[in-house]
């Protein structure tokens, strides 16, 4: 065996080993995913980032830490949980006496919440997502006094779905996690926590 072919042989052997290594890692990763590789119940499906409103403490970092400006996190209204209060603590600044839509009374720094009369004594509140910056101020107010129907959620069409979410990295409450793409929202109030 001359030098050249010996080198060739070593190269072949190492190449084979590397192939084996790749196959081993792949096989391991595919096998450990459990039964279905495709279909709805598989574990290996794609994921997206979402925050769990039950853990959220409204620290304001969703507004400041997202790689997008304005943030891809927006206030989302779970209408089915809303009490349709006249005095909405997510809409009005605390201490507001007269309940009208004057800017001096609005809690939202960008005035992204619209208030419309439904019937006595109920009002509907809708979020203008083009304005909302995801600061969570209204979420805090609604949660402290009301039912918590206003919740922060990552809005997926806006989200870049970074490999590691930069808000998740800085979320003090650890509220962010990867959720399956097939069920991309963690909004409370859809019977999810039904006991």
């Amino acid at each position: 065996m001359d030098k050249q072919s010996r080198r060739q042989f070593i190269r072949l052997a190492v190449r084979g080993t590397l192939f084996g290594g790749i196959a081993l890692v792949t096989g391991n990763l595919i096998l450990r995913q459990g039964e279905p590789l495709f279909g709805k119940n598989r574990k290996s499906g794609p994921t997206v980032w979402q925050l769990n409103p039950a853990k959220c403490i409204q620290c304001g970092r969703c507004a400041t830490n997202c790689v997008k400006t304005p943030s891809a996190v927006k206030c989302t209204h779970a209408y089915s949980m809303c009490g349709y209060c006249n005095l909405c603590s997510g809409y009005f600044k605390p201490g507001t006496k007269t309940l009208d839509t004057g800017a001096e009374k609005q809690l939202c720094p960008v005035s992204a919440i619209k208030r419309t009369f439904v019937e006595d004594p109920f009002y509907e509140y809708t979020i203008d997502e083009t304005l909302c910056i995801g600061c969570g101020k209204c979420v805090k107010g609604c949660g402290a006094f009301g039912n918590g129907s206003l919740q922060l959620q990552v809005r997926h069409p806006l989200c870049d779905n970074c490999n590691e979410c930069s808000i998740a990295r800085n979320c003090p409450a650890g509220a962010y996690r990867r959720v399956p793409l097939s069920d991309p929202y963690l909004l409370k109030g859809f019977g999810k926590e039904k006991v």
Partner: protein
Amino acid sequence: MKKLLPDEILVKFLRLLAMISGIFSLLICILIFINFFQLKRTDPLNSPALTLLQERLIQNPGDIALKQDIRQLDLMARKVFFTSQWQIRAGGYLLVACILVMIICLKTIELITPKIPSIAATGPEEPWNLRKIQRRWIIIAGILLVTFSLTLVWFTHRMLTGIPAEAGHLKANVSGRDSITGNPVLQSPVASLTSDTVRLLGNAVKSNQAVAEDFPTQQEIRSNFPSFRGPGGNGIAFQKNIPVLWDGASGKNIGWKTEIPLPGYNSPIIWKDKIFLSGAKENKREVYCLGASDGKILWTTDLSKIPGSPGQNPKVNAETGLAAPTLTTDGQRIYTIFANGDLAALDFEGKIIWTKSLGLPKNHYGHSSSLIMYHDMLIIQYDQTVSGKVIAFAGKTGEKVWETARNVKVSWASPVLANTGSRMELLLAAEPDVTSYDPATGKELWKLDCISGEVGPSVTYANGMVFSINEYSKLAAIRLGETPSLAWEDNEYLSDVPSPVAINDIVIVVTSYGVVVCYDAATGKKYWVKELEKSVYSSPMIAEGKIYILDKQGMMHILRADKILAVIGEPSLGEGSVCTPAFGEGRIYIRGNKHLFCITK
């Protein structure tokens, strides 16, 4: 092809363009930075002027001019905010465009200017020398790295306050404890890794057990519902958190309901997350397995054609039907028997393990004794008009382990297993005797002549006493001991279908015409009588200190299992039923005339 411009001019032009766009992009860069810092420094949304005005408004709520000022300022602040955001965005696009132009220009220049390879005057440097230098620098890099790391450790060292010593000690058992208590720590990846380990360990332990003995432990039996009237057939369920309120009509607290394809009066049995029951009509016999969580029928096994089957239908009473005996399970297989004497063992996937035909039973109402397991043996009470017997088959293979002939009349009661403290007894009732057998060998232990007629209700055992009952006969309380003897008897309220139940020091009898009576177990003193005014075929069950009595119209009468009568609830199923309910953790499963219901909280 003729060129539009000479190369030199084009290059000059492109160079100029590149320079302009370069300068331009630099300018935009600076502008964006300025805008960015400005926005950061004077956050328009939190402008102090606005806050000041608002504070003033709180003091003078009536000041309309002030309100107007705030509104204007607020609008302006928001405009500034959104405009500057827009500016940054637009600036970004502009910047990219400029840089793109620059890159294109430079690349084009690169393309059209001829590439002149440069050859150094001197040849390449001596490679051996290069290697030497490289080696030296790698070593320098290594030394630098170690020094740097240690310095970093030294500097960050002071920030650490360390972890309390006891926390370190806890490390060892953290995995086990957390996975048991389900602490939130579980969410951490570390803990989930260890919980995997725990699960694996659990499996290992379990498989060891399976090797040691081939039947479930008492604990496992109690945490499931493996036979008619619960573990041992004594009418007591050990599950907790049992619902007391539901309504079949509105669907309230009905977890799910599933239509069972073929009729049958057998009750559901439960092992872990699976529910089993059977149904039959002429020439068709099936076993069903349902998922406890959603009630979906997971599989159906057709047992219509098993080898040696009599091939003809027995004559049965409409109230007994062709599938009256309840199934049983040992956690590995399930066993079923039909009115024509066809017996089968299936695995949990519905695959047939073995089958047998016991021959058409001579039983004028139809065979209805349910099955029961003792260790790994399947026990069958096969009372017939002639040559009744009790048989035990090996669950795994279907081989006969023992068979004992019974000199009794035909009966419809089911076998009951009782742990008397000193031994296990198999208790059967049929005119004329209540008979006890050793379930391991089939040897008769004792018998007492105290029952007569066509016996329907099974016996029950509690605290050293056995209670038997039958219509036109009597309620007999047998005290076990050296020689079992009749402690007391009563014949005021008698049952021909529901079996009695006993707990603590009381025994409760439900008659088929709907009277519930509570006796003192030791003396036979009546504590209370409650008339349900409905007829009852299903046997009462005790769970969590409450008696559950299901009447034929599907109303569940929940009473306190106590000397004082208390009605806890009377929820209704909305469908008639004659089957005895089965209990899961926080659930009741009831087979109605058509559906199997899962009742939840």
